[in-house]
């Protein structure tokens, strides 16, 4: 770098650039926060779905699964599982775990009662209604 480009110039670019782009980011965040409800008009965040989200979190589901592509990559995407499999399949699956098939990846038994299973399904239904700009590319997630 040339001698005319001084440390204080570099420092000013750092402070000015960081503050400028952080302010833009804040503005975009305000806009996004306001746009989220209308962008996701079809997503019904019911009380059951809120309770289901707590079950999702306290069973560490994202330790193995992805939800809209985020989480772990050990087990299937669940953001659209409500559409792919339907509510009864999900509940039956949860009750049947673990499969204990030798060598297969195993999912723990979480011992959820019927009301908790309904809440979890309500949360997965809500997840499937989020407007993901057409992600994933196909139903397999």
């Amino acid at each position, binding site marked *: 770098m040339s001698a005319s480009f001084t440390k204080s110039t570099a420092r000013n670019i750092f402070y000015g650039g960081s503050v400028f*782009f952080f302010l833009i980011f804040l503005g975009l965040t305000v806009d996004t926060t306001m746009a989220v409800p209308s962008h996701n008009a079809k997503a019904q*965040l019911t009380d059951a779905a809120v309770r289901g989200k707590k079950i999702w*979190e*306290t069973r*560490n589901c994202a330790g193995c699964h992805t939800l809209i592509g985020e989480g*772990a990559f050990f087990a299937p995407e669940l953001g659209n599982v409500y559409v792919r499999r339907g509510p009864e399949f999900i509940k039956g699956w949860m009750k049947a775990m*673990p499969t204990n098939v030798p060598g297969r990846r195993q999912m723990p038994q979480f011992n959820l009662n019927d009301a908790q299973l309904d809440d979890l399904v309500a949360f997965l239904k809500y997840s499937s209604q*989020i407007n993901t700009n057409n992600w994933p590319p196909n139903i397999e997630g």
Partner: protein
Amino acid sequence: MSNATVAALPASKATVNDQIKYRSQAVAKPYFVAAIGLFIGQILFGLIIGLQYFKGDFLFPAIPFGTARMVHTNLLIVWLLFGFMGAGYFLIPEECERELYSPKLAIITFWVFLVAGALTIVGYLGLPYNVLAHLTGNDLLPTMGRGYLEQPLITKVGIVLVALSFLFNLSMTLLSGRKTSISIVMMLGLWGLAIFFLFSFVNPNNLVLDKYFWWWVVHLWVEGVWELIMGAMLAFVLVKVTGVDREIIEKWLYLIIAMTLITGIIGTGHHYFWIGTPGYWQLLGSVFSALEPVPFFMMTVFAFNMVKRRRREHPNQAATLWALGTGVMSFLGAGVWGFLGTLSVVNYYTHGTQLTAAHGHMAFYGAYAMVVLTMISYTMPLLRGREANSAAAQKLEKTAFWVMTLAIVGITLSLTAAAVTQVSLQRLSASPLPFMETQQHIMPMYWARFGFGLCFFTGLMMYVTSFFVTGKRES
């Protein structure tokens, strides 16, 4: 220092060590030792989950995949934090040309953090996660069960208190000392780390907003403020080992971190393509995150340039190797592998696949693990009373560098091959296969990844052994 302050230092450090300029810098040593210990734990759990990828019932139900993965990622974060803190306690007094404000507080903070971290891991392994959540106050304020932020509420509060104690100690040191660019950038990075961690307490019921602000911790850490910490640590070591004029190094540092934040803040948008946020993020996120490799490339050029222009031959060649290595590997891992999946048109197919895992492994190792190891490599000999380790010890450390680094390249390439297979069979195919069926086709890549994982562990053991190698000291 008062007698009480001296008494607070580790016993062996109370004797005179003429290699460190300020005696209170010795508090860094237990932080580095803990960092390496937790690093070993991280890799052991990495091996468990790497094995579970192809032998699915391994250790089930004692340690299910989700639990082991949580231990793997949380130990990663905690050992890097120990490394950053050790680096801060060493670097800030030296740059500020004065003793640490309170070495005693630093030692107390160390034990609080270590015990809290250990109890959290014991909780993960010993209790069902929902029971742990219930016992630790998650019903009061639900924050658990989100990637990297799985810690119980009381642990999160503990992390904030530890961070405040650490930042108070360093800030008080800085305020009454010499203020260099390196120390100011280090402090900005560390304060940013603490401030953005506060978003781990933000967990809206709305899943879109939950995900939106989750990235304010995860992205604004690793693709934002952590790069300031990394840049400051690298600059500090380069000043020491090359003897290049500080003005030049600090000019580079400012320019690199300017590019980091100019690209990286709006670059957060590459996580906002599909999570229920407006479509404009696809353009913004693609453009800005495509520029995120620039600061990492500058980091590489910076490290090589400074070493080439060195004005002294520092006897610690291992530290120089780590400094060059972190420049290259952070560019490859964070820059190149990050770019592979960052454009929205590509990300549509790669989002949530093994490509993310490939990028994550090389980026975390190349940028953050390696910069902490750079700092440890430079400071530990000094903290142990010598300018550099013996030739034999350095030789083993350099071999460990190559084994670990090549193993990470192997892991990354295996996972990239896994990702290519996964994307083509499950995402691109006209008749897409289900997830688990696709996984069956990826098994050879998972075997390969595990093999490279064993190589990595071997390299890590060589690295640890290098601390115990004596031999003739170089003049």
